[in-house]
C-alpha cells in the first residue's frame, strides 16, 4: 500500500461519516484503492459511520498492518477474528496488508516510509534484527509495562524478547520465530551428528559414493550468511560482541578462528563450491532433489520436503539441532523471526498497541501454529495436545528452541551485518585467510559499535 492509498482510505472514512459518500461509492472507491471486497465491507461496517450518519454502522478507528509475506491466509483470518471480537468491543478495525517476499525489499520499503515520516502503516512486522535499528532512529514506539506487563512477558520464549530489546526497553512484540535446523537424511544417516567433526566424517562416508553432496547451507553474501556464520561461531563458544557490553567486539578470538576455518574447509569438499552462491531456496532445491545428505535451513522447509509433489525425499529425513565443536557443548540456532512494532508517526498509538497485544494472545498464537505451522512465541502452546497431535514436528523443536540465540543486537545492524557478510564471504572464497578475515572484521566492527 502506498501513502496515497492510505490517505484516500482515511478520507473515505471521514466522508462517509459526515454523510458525503454513499455505501456504494465507498465500496467502489475501496476497490480502486486495492482493498479486497471482503476487507472493504469489513472496513465499512466497522468504521464507516457514527451515531448520526446513515452510511455505515460503526465508528471504530481504522488501523492498517503490514505483515511479512503470508501465503497461507492465516494472518487474514486472525485479523478477521480480531475485528469481530475484541476489535468490535473496543472500537478498533484492522486492515491487513500483504508484505513483499524478500526481507531486503521490505526493509527498503520501511526505510522509505519512515524516512518520509509517514504513517502509511500503523503496525508493521519487522525482522528480529531491525527493532534496535528502527528504535535508534525514533521510528517505532517503545512498549511500556502497562502495554504489556512484565509478568506476561515471562510466558514467552526469551530469545526473541531479547532480540527486540534495545537500551533496556522493548520495541517490538515477538509473534513468531525462525530458527536454523540441521536436516539429515534418515535413509543415509542412522544417528545424526552432534559435533561438526562428526558432520564432516559422516558427509565424507556417504558422499560422493551414495549422494552427490554432503552438506548444503547458505554461503552467498547476504543476510543468511550471517545466520549460518553465527551458528557455527556460537557452536564453538565464540561471540561477535561481548554479551554484557555491546560496544566491545569479541570476534577476533581463537574460538572464532576455529569456527571460520571449519566453515572454509567445507567449501569444495563436503559442500559443492557453488555453495557460496546459495541462499535458502538453492540449498532447498539441491536437498529436496535428494542430492545432499545434510542441509541447514529454517523450519519452512520441513513441510515442503514432506510433500511428494515437490520433493523426492518425503519422510526420508528428520531434523536435529545444529552441531557444535571445539570447547562448545551445545549447538545453537540463529533466531530469525517476525515481530510487531508500532509506527511512531501513527496517531493511533493506543489502538495499534491493543492489536499488537492481541497478536500475543493464546488464540492468535494458536491460530498461527495450527494454521500455518509457525513457531510462535508463547511457550505454553507447544504443550497443547492439539498442537502435538497435528504437528509432531514441534516436539523436536523444544530443546532446539531453548538453545537458540539472536544475532548481535545493534542500532546499526545493517552495517554490522554487511561487515560480517563481506569478511566471512571473503574467507569462504579464499580471497583472504580466516585470520585476516577475523581481524579485519573486528577492526571494522569496532569503528561501527564503539
Amino acid at each position: 500500500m502506498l501513502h496515497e492509498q492510505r490517505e484516500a482510505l482515511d478520507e473515505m472514512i471521514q466522508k462517509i461519516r459526515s454523510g458525503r459518500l454513499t455505501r456504494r461509492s465507498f465500496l467502489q472507491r475501496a476497490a480502486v484503492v486495492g482493498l479486497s471486497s471482503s476487507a472493504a465491507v469489513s472496513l465499512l461496517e466497522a468504521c464507516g459511520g457514527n451515531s448520526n450518519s446513515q452510511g455505515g454502522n460503526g465508528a471504530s478507528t481504522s488501523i492498517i498492518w503490514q505483515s511479512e509475506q503470508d501465503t497461507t491466509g492465516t494472518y487474514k483470518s486472525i485479523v478477521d477474528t480480531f475485528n469481530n471480537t475484541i476489535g468490535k468491543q473496543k472500537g478498533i478495525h484492522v486492515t491487513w496488508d500483504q508484505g513483499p517476499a524478500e526481507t531486503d525489499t521490505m526493509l527498503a520499503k520501511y526505510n522509505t516510509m519512515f524516512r518520509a515520516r509517514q504513517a502509511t502503516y500503523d503496525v508493521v512486522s519487522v525482522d528480529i534484527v531491525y527493532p534496535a535499528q528502527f528504535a535508534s532512529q525514533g521510528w517505532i514506539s517503545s512498549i511500556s509495562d502497562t502495554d504489556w506487563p512484565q509478568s506476561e512477558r515471562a510466558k514467552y520464549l526469551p530469545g526473541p524478547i531479547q532480540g527486540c530489546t534495545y537500551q533496556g526497553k522493548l520495541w517490538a512484540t515477538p509473534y513468531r520465530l525462525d530458527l536454523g535446523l540441521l536436516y539429515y537424511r534418515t535413509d543415509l544417516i542412522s544417528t545424526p551428528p552432534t559435533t561438526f567433526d562428526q558432520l564432516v566424517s559422516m558427509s565424507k562416508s556417504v558422499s560422493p559414493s551414495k549422494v552427490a553432496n554432503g552438506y548444503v547451507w547458505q554461503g552467498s553474501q547476504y543476510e543468511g550468511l550471517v545466520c549460518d556464520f553465527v551458528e557455527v561461531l556460537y557452536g564453538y563458544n565464540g561471540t561477535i560482541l561481548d554479551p554484557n557490553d555491546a560496544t566491545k567486539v569479541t570476534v577476533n578470538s581463537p574460538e572464532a578462528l576455529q569456527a571460520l576455518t571449519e566453515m572454509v574447509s567445507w567449501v569444495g569438499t563436503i559442500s559443492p563450491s557453488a555453495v557460496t552462491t546459495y541462499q535458502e531456496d538453492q540449498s532447498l532445491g539441491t536437498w529436496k532433489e535428494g542430492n545432499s545428505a545434510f542441509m541447514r535451513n529454517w523450519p519452512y522447509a520441513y513441510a515442503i520436503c514432506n510433500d511428494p509433489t515437490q520433493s523426492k525425499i518425503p519422510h526420508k529425513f528428520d531434523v536435529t539441532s545444529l552441531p557444535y565443536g571445539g570447547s562448545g557443548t551445545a549447538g545453537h540456532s540463529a533466531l530469525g523471526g517476525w515481530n510487531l512494532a508500532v509506527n511512531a508517526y501513527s496517531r493511533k498509538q493506543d489502538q495499534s498497541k491493543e492489536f499488537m497485544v492481541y497478536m500475543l494472545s493464546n488464540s492468535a498464537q494458536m491460530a498461527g501454529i495450527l494454521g500455518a505451522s509457525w513457531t510462535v512465541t508463547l511457550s505454553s502452546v507447544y504443550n497443547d495436545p492439539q498442537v502435538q497431535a497435528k504437528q509432531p514436528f514441534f516436539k523436536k523443536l523444544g530443546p532446539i528452541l531453548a538453545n537458540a540465540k539472536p544475532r548481535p543486537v545493534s542500532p546499526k545492524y545493517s552495517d554490522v551485518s554487511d561487515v560480517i557478510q563481506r569478511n566471512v564471504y571473503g574467507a569462504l572464497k579464499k580471497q583472504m585467510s580466516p585470520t585476516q578475515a577475523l581481524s579485519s572484521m573486528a577492526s571494522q566492527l569496532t569503528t561501527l559499535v564503539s
Partner: protein
Amino acid sequence: MSVQTLDSTEQKPLSWWQRLRANGTLLPYLLVLPTLLLILVIAIYPMLDSFWISTQDNPLIAQPVFVGLANYIQVLKDPQFQGSVLNTLIFTVVSVFLETVCGLGIALLINKTFPGRGLVRAAILVPWAFPTVVSAQMWLLMYNDQTGIITYILQLLHLLPHGATLLGSSSGVIIAALVTDVWKTTPFMALLILAGLQVIPNELYEAADVDGSTPVQSFWRITLPLLRDPLLIALLFRSLDAIRVFDLFYIFGARSVPSMASYADLRLFAGTTADFAPGVAAAVIVFLFALVISLVFISMMRNMLRQI
C-alpha cells in the same frame, strides 16, 4: 563541403554578443527560454540537489551537517566500490565492443533483400523487448549450479569444475552479465546500424562496382565512413546504458559483485540512515562517469552536430 569551408574562413564567426546585436532583437532567445527553464527545473535542479545532498552527513535528520567531500572519500576508499568501478568499466568496454561488432554483422545481413526479411527484422528484436530484470532471472536459472543448462555444458567441457557455477567468481559474474547483455542488446545495436545503412545511396556502390572495387573495398571505403555518424550515436547510447548497468549485477552479483549503480542502490536503500548520503555520492559518481562519456562522444560528433 568545400564551399562551406570557404565561407567560414572568409567570415570570422561572430561572438554571441555580436549576434545578439546583429539580430537586433531578443525574440529568438525569448522563444527558447521556456525550453531552457524546463531543462533547468527537470534536469539541472535535481542534479545540483543530489550533489548538495551528497555533501551532507545525514540529509534525513532535521539538522544535517555539511561535510564537504567526506562521503565521496568514504565511498572511493571502500574496496567494494573500487571493485564495482572495475567491474562496470570492464563490462562497459567489452559489452559495447561485442554488441557493435555483432550488431554490424547482423545489420549487414538483414540489409540485403531476401524473402521474409520483415519477419526476421521484427523477430530479432524479441530479446530486446524483455525487461532486463526478467531476462536476468531467466539466465539466472540457466546459470544455476544444479539444474542450469549453461553450467551443465560448461562442466561437460571441463571449463568449470564439478559442483561450481559461473556465478561463483567475480570474473564469472562479469562474463555471465556480458553474455546476457550481448544476447539482449545486440538487436538494438543492429537496428540502429541498419537505419544508418539504409540511407547510404545505392549509386555509390554501383559506381564503385563499375570502377572494379571488391565488396571488401566497398565496405571499408564506402560503408564504414558513411556509417560513422550513426555508429557514434549508437555507441553513445550503448556506452551510457552500459556504464549505468544495474539489473544484471543486481541479480547475478547481488552484494558480492555489484556494479556502480547496484552498489549505490544497496547503500541508499538497504543500509542504515547513515548510509544514505554515501549512497547518493556513489550515484553522483555514476552520473559523472556518464557525463564524461557523453562529452567524449559529443566532441567526436561535433562536425555532425554543426551540419544539423
